[in-house]
């Protein structure tokens, strides 16, 4: 991963379909989702991962943050099945506890980005005109604002960077892409007959946005959300690599991988980097399979019936 926000997917759905009365679109979607085996598997594996990291204290007795000078870079042993890291901390417990942080970072950053992005995108796309121009110029500004400088300044001023602040930085810098995409979708919806119709019978703006716009934009929203979550987990690891991530000794999958900074660890201690790597990969795969499932489920034109 690089220090960029994931370019979001713009699926650009053009032809909306009015929801069918009687059989709610969500029920149809749910049924479709169940038919997608990969997505269902994804749900279960992800649930497993969430359970494992939630009940980490039951699975390991070691502290993820306690260093031990005698155990530095020890290979796997009975007591420490994944060995120990460069500060003598237990890799297995770091993997489990780190999963909590990584998932929380990924998930909450995604949620916050969605809230900001969808709200602003809806307003801009629905009303257009001056409001649109203001929001979009603000989005441009945010895109131009260097993520690194923002990170560094906030880290330096606040003294303590915790997960919350980290999430906030990500959300603040990554909403513009999503906003642009939502807005783009809305712009083409705006002139459609059913919207004009709804307006004509006096539906409130709020109602129109929620009843007609958001359901029609759900495809791009979901795909983007899942991609974002995956990307944020990776972004954290890249930032750790250059020293701007969530600081040690707090474990995350990202900063565990960034320990593999030398060819020696890469070559001699696969137990140190393969597990967090696999954890990220599996999580990202699951999230994306689920995302694909959701996309297919919500997208009425999907090939898969």
């Amino acid at each position, binding site marked *: 991963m690089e220090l960029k926000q994931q370019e979001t997917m713009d699926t650009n759905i053009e032809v909306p379909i009015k929801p069918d009365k009687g059989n709610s679109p969500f029920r149809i979607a749910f049924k479709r989702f169940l038919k997608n085996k990969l997505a269902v598997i994804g749900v279960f594996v992800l649930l497993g991962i969430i359970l494992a990291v939630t009940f980490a204290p039951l699975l390991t007795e070691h502290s993820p943050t306690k260093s031990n000078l005698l155990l530095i870079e020890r290979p796997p042993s009975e007591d420490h099945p994944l060995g120990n890291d460069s500060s003598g901390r237990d890799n297995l417990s770091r993997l489990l506890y780190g999963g909590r942080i990584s998932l929380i970072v990924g998930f909450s950053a995604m949620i916050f980005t969605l809230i900001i992005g969808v709200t602003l995108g809806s307003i801009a796309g629905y009303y257009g005109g001056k409001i649109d121009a203001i929001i979009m110029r603000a989005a441009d500004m945010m895109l131009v604002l260097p993520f690194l400088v923002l990170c560094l300044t906030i880290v330096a001023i606040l003294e303590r960077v915790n997960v919350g602040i980290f999430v906030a930085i990500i959300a603040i810098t990554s909403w513009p892409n999503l906003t642009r995409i939502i807005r783009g979708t809305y712009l083409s919806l705006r002139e459609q007959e059913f919207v004009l119709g709804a307006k004509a019978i006096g539906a409130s703006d709020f109602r129109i946005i929620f009843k007609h716009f958001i359901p029609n934009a759900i495809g791009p929203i979901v795909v983007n959300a899942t991609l974002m979550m995956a990307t944020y987990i990776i972004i954290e690891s890249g930032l750790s*690599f250059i020293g701007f991530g969530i600081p040690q000794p707090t474990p995350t999958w990202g900063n565990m991988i960034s320990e593999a900074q030398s060819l020696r660890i890469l070559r001699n201690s696969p137990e140190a980097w393969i597990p967090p790597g696999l954890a990220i990969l599996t999580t990202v795969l699951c999230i994306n399979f689920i995302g694909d499932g959701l996309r297919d489920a919500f997208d009425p034109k999907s090939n898969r019936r």
Partner: protein
Amino acid sequence: MYKYIIRRLLIFIPMLIVLTIFVFGLIQAAPGDPITGKNFDPNIDPEVFERQKEALGLNDPIHVQYWNWVTKVMQGDFGESYIFKGRDVSELIGERIGNTFYLGIFTLFITIIVSIPIGIYSAKKPYSILDYGATTFGFFGLAVPNFFFGLVAIYVFSIKLGWLPSQGSVSSPGLTGLELFLDKLQHLILPGLTLGLAGTASYMRFMRSEVLDVLASDYIRTARAKGMTNRSVLYKHTLRNAMIPIITLLGFEVGILLSGAVITEGVFQYPGIGTLFLSSIGNRDYPVIMAINLMLGFFILLGNLLADIFYSIVDPRIRYD
């Protein structure tokens, strides 16, 4: 439309000014300066550093420093770097922008030639083995941190196999002509692949979903109904329509590639803008940070403008007023 474009271009100027004020304020708000803590030699009297700060104007109030910077930039002078003593910022950026540019182009090239055909194939035969393989590869690409892939690539291709150079942008000074070109190209391969990995993955996913959408749309169904062959449906109608948003995205990508390669450039010691930017931030080299920002800002704004213009060309229903 032209009025719109001109207006947008004019908006650039205040936006860039706001951007520079914002970045200047941010970076000044962060503690530290280009001199303190830089050379920690106990034989050097701290008084010396105080005098240097004074001489550089670092003790002036922020608005004075900003004004001094802006007035110089207006005259086309980006000043001298604080860290690379005696070197003009424009010269520093100049000698690296080329490298970053080559890397960006090469990466885009790889991204496109890999992701688009695979994406199309995946969409043509969704849920086939190749589709699943590509999906897995795609997410693998997304899930592997760049620095990590870079290290593995260096280890395998440079150190073990000895096929490709791992560090820098040329193997020796004094190469010219074709030799220089081929040498530079060789040095681009590993960083380009590394940098392109995540991009390739997401473009592939993106292409697949675009083509799927277009294939399912009414006019394609109509075309099919009229008896057009699959092949001509695919190439005549689908691709053209699916490519447009891709091109829009590529517009974004230019700015991202210019700034985004920090880590990859670091691992490969590839002297580009990314590493310069990172080290300038660490060293508080204000003139360099500001100049890079201004440049990136310009490119990204331009990219966005192009994207908006594309939108309205693609979909005439979108009006700009």
